[in-house]
């Protein structure tokens, strides 16, 4: 079955709503709390998922999401180009995730360990189901574990760019603004990541499995 370009292309929903977002950013820059609250409504799920993909802990992801928006609110007057608000927000979140891993590494050095993959019994899944059963929990755990194994062959930058492109649905330009790299560097890293993952058996298994 041939898929159309619109289905394959990165999520461009922000283009349709970009005018509204830009006006909200402009008002929020003047200190309007209501406008910033509206921006939180628009972006907080995306930021939360983006953080969760990297740390696989709901509670920590919520804390980092809160920290991201707090910092964004305090520093929004320093945003020079309002069109770059989304990539600027993602940059803050990427930096908070890096700080989280630095602290985690420090804690592991002094003997305080934390479970990498947390599955809380009180979690609500993305499709709105409360208290997922044991099978769903096992499927989730298995997926994240296999994804982690599949991406072990990637460097940190390759992994980050791959996640931003195919999990967070950012375009090449947005990724370059988020990571403060030029577009050719981003394309090079993405090319290397895809070349390594193309024939990866673990990833192929994930692709072939039917997730219910």
């Amino acid at each position: 079955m041939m898929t159309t370009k619109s289905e394959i292309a990165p999520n461009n929903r922000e283009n349709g709503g970009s005018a509204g977002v830009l006006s909200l950013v402009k008002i929020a820059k003047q200190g309007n709390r209501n406008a910033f609250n509206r921006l939180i409504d628009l972006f907080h799920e995306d930021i939360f998922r983006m953080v969760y993909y990297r740390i696989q802990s709901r509670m920590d992801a919520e804390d980092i999401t809160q920290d991201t928006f707090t910092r964004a609110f305090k520093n929004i007057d320093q945003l020079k180009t309002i069109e770059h608000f989304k990539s600027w927000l993602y940059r803050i979140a990427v930096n908070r995730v890096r700080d989280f891993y630095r602290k985690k590494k420090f804690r592991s050095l002094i003997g305080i360990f934390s479970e990498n993959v947390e599955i809380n019994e009180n979690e609500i899944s993305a499709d709105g189901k409360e208290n997922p059963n044991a099978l769903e929990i096992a499927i989730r755990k298995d997926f994240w574990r296999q994804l982690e194994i599949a991406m072990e062959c990637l460097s940190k930058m390759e992994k980050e760019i791959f996640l931003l492109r195919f999990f967070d649905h950012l375009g090449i330009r947005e990724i370059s603004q988020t990571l403060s790299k030029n577009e050719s560097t981003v394309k090079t890293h993405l090319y290397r990541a895809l070349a390594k993952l193309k024939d990866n058996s673990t990833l192929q298994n994930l692709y072939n499995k039917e997730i219910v």
Partner: protein
Amino acid sequence: MNSYKTRHLNEEQLIRSVVDKTSIPLHLQHHLSECPKCLKSKNDLELKFIKIGETAKTLSPFPMKRPQLPPEKSKPEKSKIVRWRPVLVTAFTVLLVISGVLLSYLSRVPTESVFINDFSYEIWEDKMFMEEISFLAENALPLEYMEFLNESGLELDEDSIESVTSPKDIQSSSKNPKKKGDPLC
């Protein structure tokens, strides 16, 4: 037609077209848009990664807490703190200066015991000086002449002193003030 059939995209070109379609040469971009086989290969490759991303979204939890904005800060409190700061700094500086001046003054003023000792020594010196003067007044002449005067009953005035004493005696007494009975030598 032959060039169209043989110029399919290789693996590297397919990956590049997934990364960014404009990164492959123009003729390959044109081929990609027209060749069903190459287009399917490219779409299948891209769809694999997109599907994994969609699965991750399905398996990630829903956030239970919505981020909250920090509470608004009241500005007047800040201005109060700012106003008190220079006053405190000035008061502290003045106290330091005053304590430094006091310390330097106290170090110059002699202590009571030293003062008392100096004063009593001065008193003793004055006393000794007065005794010396009174002795000189009572014993102006050499001892022999004093004994003679006492026996003769002469009055002690200038004429009698000159008649009794000789110039030599006067010179020798001035040169050698240390005589018997002189307590100060």
